[in-house]
């Protein structure tokens, strides 16, 4: 079973990540566990949001960092497999869903579209999803400032 192919933008971002992490020390940890951490930290994000916006922003940055790290580590130490792809996209969607369930409009609608896009990606073998959390972090920074 093959992994869905990334679009031009997806390939560009992957190459960019590879170039950034080329000389960087990366611990040899199971990338699936790092993906799982992004889900756990998404839960922490919504818990912290009402108490401290700055702390929650930091937690959200960690979520994105884990998302970045799991791909980088998988590329360097492990042969990329379909299992890794499934875990990565599932963790991403669950993480998005948890974060956007409290912000709701329009984010939850976009999350729903992203879910269908993920299924379509697997079906059509072309990876097309919206980088919602990356867009959301800019929105959050503007809102906090």
């Amino acid at each position, binding site marked *: 079973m093959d992994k869905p192919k990334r679009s031009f933008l997806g390939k560009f971002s992957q190459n960019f990540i590879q170039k950034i992490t080329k000389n960087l020390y990366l611990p040899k940890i199971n990338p699936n566990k790092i993906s799982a951490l992004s889900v756990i930290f998404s839960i922490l994000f919504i818990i912290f949001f009402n108490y401290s916006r700055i702390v929650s922003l930091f937690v959200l940055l960690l979520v994105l960092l884990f998302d970045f790290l799991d791909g980088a580590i998988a590329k360097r130490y492990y042969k990329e497999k379909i*299992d890794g792809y499934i*875990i990565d996209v599932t963790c991403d969607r669950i993480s998005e869903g948890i974060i956007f369930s409290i912000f709701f409009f329009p984010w939850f609608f976009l999350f729903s579209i992203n879910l*269908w896009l993920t*299924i379509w990606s697997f079906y059509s073998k072309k990876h097309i999803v919206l980088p919602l959390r990356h867009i959301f972090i800019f929105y959050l920074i503007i809102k906090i400032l």
Partner: protein
Amino acid sequence: MNTLLHFLISFIIIDIIFGNAKGYILPIILFSMLIDLDHLPYLINVKKNVFKRKFGAESRSFLHELLGLSIFSSIICILFFFLSLRLLQIISLCLLLHFSLDFLFGITRPLYPFTNKKIYLGIVKKEFVYILETFLTFILLILFLVFFYG
């Protein structure tokens, strides 16, 4: 993870975030446990052997996986125009916490029915999952009583 644990986690997290989980106890019970109803056809099929078998990936239908989440999220988006925002936030959070717990600690087939590929994240060793589940249920039950009557 067991159904009670799904309810307890949803209740406690919603109480921390929104502060009034008691007022939404019925939707929390309903939507944190709703997805587990898809175990029923499996239970009916195994009948007498029910206690010997574990609730593995096969006991879950597509409603427990990404396709189910897509269907539920679309329904919630439609309901946005008819129900209160707080209620929808609680419903979506209950469903997502259920999915996330099952995915983090159980064996799932996230892209079922498109592929039968089973996934286990391995955060906790398989033999310790039941111990962790029992321990978490006990601790969260105490926390729930504190939140509910405190």
